[in-house]
């Protein structure tokens, strides 16, 4: 089985984000970057599927600047066979990213192309679905359980109030949801081996796109909490505040 995973380099979710001087991008100085957490489920699933099949190839794709090589090497350290970096400045228009990825994935002979269900930096939920469309392949999003038997893919999706089971045929494109698996840590031997694995650099040029970021703003600072008192005596004041100030009861 040949499996590709498309991986994005994103700021660590525990990093304190500052907005850059242009007001439209984040200030990257001192920010720690990590593989997109949802993509880690895709990475793990690809490795598990290859291990279960006993043969095949796992390839990690990333679109980004040179620093994304480090992100690719994280996947290589986990056990991926090789990496491809499509060198381009990231853009806000997911369709441009999808076109560049699809163009390279098209002739790769992949049975499965996996994505995280979204990237935590832009929350767009776009690229995986668009790549599927561009390649004219079936697409199942937010997969939380997966069985591949022959060319049949059966996936479970958590939907409001229940679980939906869907099926499709390989080759297919899937996006992965939390809970699909527990991503492994790269082993120390894996980290050393990653340096020797092939990592192909391919410059790509993205179109201008049709979506532009106008500005970024931090969420408003939360107002400090208020202690209205202690014990049963405080209840009337609390009820009054919940009703009048907060309007929740």
């Amino acid at each position, binding site marked *: 089985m040949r499996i590709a995973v498309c991986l994005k380099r994103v700021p660590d979710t525990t990093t304190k984000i500052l907005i850059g001087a242009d007001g439209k991008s984040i200030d990257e100085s001192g920010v720690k970057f990590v593989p997109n957490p949802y993509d880690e489920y895709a990475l793990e699933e690809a490795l598990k599927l290859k291990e279960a099949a006993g043969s095949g190839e796992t390839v990690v794709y990333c679109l980004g600047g040179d620093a994304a090589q480090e992100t690719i*090497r994280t996947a290589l350290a986990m056990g991926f066979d090789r990496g491809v970096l499509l060198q381009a400045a990231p853009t806000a228009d997911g369709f441009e990213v999808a076109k560049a990825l699809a163009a390279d994935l098209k002739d790769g002979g992949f049975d499965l192309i996996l994505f995280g269900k979204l990237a935590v930096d832009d929350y767009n939920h776009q690229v995986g679905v668009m790549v599927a469309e561009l390649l004219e392949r079936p697409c199942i999003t937010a997969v939380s359980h997966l069985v591949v038997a022959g060319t049949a893919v059966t996936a479970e999706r958590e939907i409001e109030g229940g679980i939906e089971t869907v099926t499709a045929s390989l080759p297919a494109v899937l996006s992965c949801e939390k809970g699909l698996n527990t991503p492994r840590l790269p082993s120390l031997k894996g980290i050393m081996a990653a340096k020797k694995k092939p990592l192909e650099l391919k410059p790509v040029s993205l179109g201008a796109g049709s979506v532009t970021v106008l500005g970024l703003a931090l969420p408003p600072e939360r107002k400090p909490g208020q202690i209205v008192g202690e014990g049963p005596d405080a209840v009337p004041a609390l009820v009054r505040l919940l009703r009048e100030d907060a309007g929740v009861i």
Partner: protein
Amino acid sequence: MASYTPPDFYQIEGLLAEEERAVRDTVRAWVEEHLMPVIGSCYVEGRFPRELVPGLADLGVLGANLPEEYGCAGLNNVAYGLIMQELERGDSGIRSFASVQGALVMYPIHAFGSEDQRRHWLPALAAGRVIGCFGLTEPDYGSNPGGMITTARETRDGWVLNGAKMWITNGSQAGVAIVWAKTGDLKDPKSIRGFIVPTDTKGFSARDQKGKLSLRASDTSELVLQDVVLPRDALLPGSGGLKSPLQCLTQARYGIAWGALGAAMACYDEALRYGKQRVMFERPIAQTQIQQVRLADMITEITKAQLLVLQLGRLKDAGTMTPQQVSLAKRNNVDMACDCAREARRLLGANGILAEYHSMRHMANLESVYTYEGTHDMHTLILGEAITGLGAY
């Protein structure tokens, strides 16, 4: 509370290579996920979490700076040091386990062992299938190991060992012990040789030392060797004289200098977060001058210690590190970690005495680290001799 935020006041991150950071981050994530949830109760119960050994071995932590051909990860010494830092950020007992396995059991087999011994033992030790211990210290010979009275008598077929060892980390868990014994006159430390002793050999016994108030999540044992008969090839052929076990201790002390730094970083992180959160007299206690002195002193000493071990590691990787440089780092970093742990505990007020917080556990652990692998005082004398040329032991 929020997750661990390791201090890096001087952007030392930028001095590390990509794979060094990757190694550190992997071990950090493992510690967070597997060790932190259990370490408080292990400590209180006085239990070594042996169930974590397979996970540590799978990651490749054991003997990580030894070559890949023996099943090890083949890391450089800075990456190895960072592993020790992250393990001891969790607990000194767990770092001690890894230090002993890697630096005091696998290292001597690699450095002094025959090729057969290496092939036989190193892959099993790296995989955690066998736990090892290191028997040098004796009840009456701690800082003066050259005075040891454990003997190895050569016979027609091999060796017979007699003696007792004390303060042996992993002793009761171990499947193999590296035992140091005199093969000649008791007055002659040059006759000290190392032996690989499977712990199921007749006449070998290990008993845990009870009542420890420090390193409670690690086993410390007494070893007794009573007419332990060993084959000829139990001898580590390359070992000779007191310098051989001391060479092992240099490896372990190198890891300790990094490890103690990890403990200090954990205490600082805990103290800083607590100080910003804990309100007294209508403001966070971190906004009081006394606590700021504590925190400023801690970050200063931690930053110095970070730069110290990084340069030490670069020297070790370049092959120019001296044992005296290791003494300076062990002495400085453990002492500074003891201070950080104590001050962090004090900043935490009454909460600081609970196992739910980490500083007091580190504080108690570090008293052992201060004392073992060359006491603070002995390293002072080693430095004194190095700079004056005059031994004052």
